[in-house]
């Protein structure tokens, strides 16, 4: 997993690299927007970690430039700007996530993994949380290396929850992904599917749990770190 870190503060950059290295990421570092452009030309990265306050350019312009050039590499903004309109401005410019400094390495690593798990991103070949492993291409799920039985709809549900592990996935998003437009969706169809999937995972002794967030959606959590 190759990450590009664009950060003008040398000490902070050193600490972030060290921390992410322990979490299994390989991080290249550059100090300026110009350096970032040059690095991107030479080699492809799976994820860009971008500080907005750069000495030679506004980080937002860098994001816009990449998106205009049809570069879809996920971008995680790391910034000290926590103003009311800053987060929206960052996301509007084309960033995928926004993390305000100061942060801790486990939080940063979790956000990076979440971005890399997105469809089309590098982690898309297999999805693993705790002892649950899934091959999206083959539509198979295994717990502790034992393949378990599941209906296609349950596999779809698990894939969505795994891709956003640790985060709440809104109910409408799951419903529209699991049930096609013309199919009859009863009010508790999703609830029933979640319930069946929970039972299967428990029977297979999976160490992940699917929690209900009433009025919002569902979230899959891995075992405590």
């Amino acid at each position, binding site marked *: 997993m190759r990450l590009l870190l664009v950060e003008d*503060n040398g*000490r*902070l950059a050193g*600490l*972030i690299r*060290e*921390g992410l290295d322990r979490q299994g990421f390989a991080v290249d570092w550059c100090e300026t927007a110009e350096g970032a452009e040059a690095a991107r030309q030479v080699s492809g990265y799976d994820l860009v970690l971008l500080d907005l*306050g750069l000495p030679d350019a506004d980080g937002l312009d860098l994001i816009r430039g990449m998106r205009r050039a049809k570069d879809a590499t996920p971008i995680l903004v790391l910034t*000290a*700007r*926590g*103003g*009311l*309109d800053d*987060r*929206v401005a960052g996301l509007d410019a084309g960033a995928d996530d926004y993390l*305000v*400094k*100061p*942060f*801790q*390495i486990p939080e940063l690593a979790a956000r990076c993994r979440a971005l890399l798990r997105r469809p089309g991103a590098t982690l898309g070949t297999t999805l693993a949380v705790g002892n649950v492993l899934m091959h999206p291409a083959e539509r198979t799920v295994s717990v502790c290396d034992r393949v378990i039985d599941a209906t296609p709809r349950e596999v779809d549900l698990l894939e969505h929850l795994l891709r956003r592990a*640790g*985060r*709440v996935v*809104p109910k409408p998003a799951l419903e529209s992904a699991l049930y096609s437009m013309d199919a009859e969706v009863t009010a508790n169809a999703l609830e029933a599917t979640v319930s069946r999937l929970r039972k299967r995972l428990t029977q297979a002794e999976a160490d992940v749990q699917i*929690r209900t*967030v*009433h*009025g*919002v*959606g569902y*979230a899959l*959590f891995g075992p405590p770190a």
Partner: protein
Amino acid sequence: MTNPRRLPVTGPTLFSQIAVRLGLFALVFALLDIGIVVATYARQPEALAQELLTLEATRIANSPDKTPGAFAGPPGARQWSAGYINAASASIRGAGGGPTTLRPAALVDWTQRERVGAGYRVTGVRSIREGEETRWLLMRFEGEGLRPYVPVILNELTQHVALPLIPLSLLLFAFNIVAVRRVLQPLKRAEDEIDALEAEHMSVRVSEPRAPREVGTLVRAVNRALDRLDESMAVLRGFTANAAHELRTPLSIMQLSLDRLPPGQVRQDLEADTAYMTRLVGQMLDLAQADAMSIDTGATVDLADIGRAVVAMLAPKAFEANRELRFEDRGDTRVRGHEEAIFRVVRNLIDNALIHAPGDTPIEVAAGPGSQISVRDRGPGVPPEDREHIFERFWRADRRASDGAGLGLGIVKRLVEAHGGNIAVEDAPGGGALFRIRFATAEPVHTD
């Protein structure tokens, strides 16, 4: 925001100021006029003598029986005589047979003034018309000094000073009433507009009247002052942004450097201190931003969407602490407001509930019905005597508690007020604290 009490402004009105000045001006003008009249006649005794005889003749002519003997003449007269002379006796016969009436030299209006000792003698003839007939009055008068002329001068003053000045003054006074009212109308409008200005909407300016130009320049000056205020707010916003960067970068370094320390008590303490510091800096910056913020009321947001988003964001953190976070949508929840600001309001309230309600109790967020959103916990609630204090900055129920600086609810209150909304805490039915925020509705809501 409470409006500062408007005290009545004392001091004279523009109307009374102008009226007083006009009055003084008329007075000075009258005095000047009197001076000129007096000075002119003092240098022309002949003209005065002429006027004196004319005045006496007018008084005799205006009396009912027109008898000159009944009049005592001008005041202070040493000698006074007046009598008619016969016009017929002055007529002569012409050579042509028929009677021809000639007008002898004596029978025109004339005046003669001569010196007599220390004084003067004035002799003259004035014609008095009586129906078709003209009678001729011969007057002779001897006097001294200015005193005999007093009635003449008074008469002159009435004619030339009082008669023109009094109507003019009245006219000016009436003009003053109308003009001042009309001129001040744009000023009154500007005053109303300035009163309606609010700190939350800094982009509004006072409209400039086309006339009078003086009010226009005043309004423009006010608008320039507003521009400067706006700029300094922008500078303040810029400052908080810079301060955020300057404070957060070293904090990040501190926090990440802790990972290099060997595990132990020292590291644990430092981690707790850094976490507290991080929270404090974040809250102070949030508060500074909230103070400098202005809400664009043009945008409408859905409180239910925001509530769902905040619950989704904080649910993992709540689950980690083994607690439940629930959301309920009660409908009709569109309001005017700033999405991120309301997001932070709700986040701060949930954070507050996570800290103050015990262990494993659930926290419930509800949007609606209508333009309200509430956060309810099942903790001990807020005692009535604390309710007016909890939104004050740096206030904490327990000063020893070290989990925050007491700024969270201060930020909430400021952000809610910037929306023109209000927040209150009450006892939830069944126990616990219920924080309820009411906003202005996006559109008039029909309740039927």
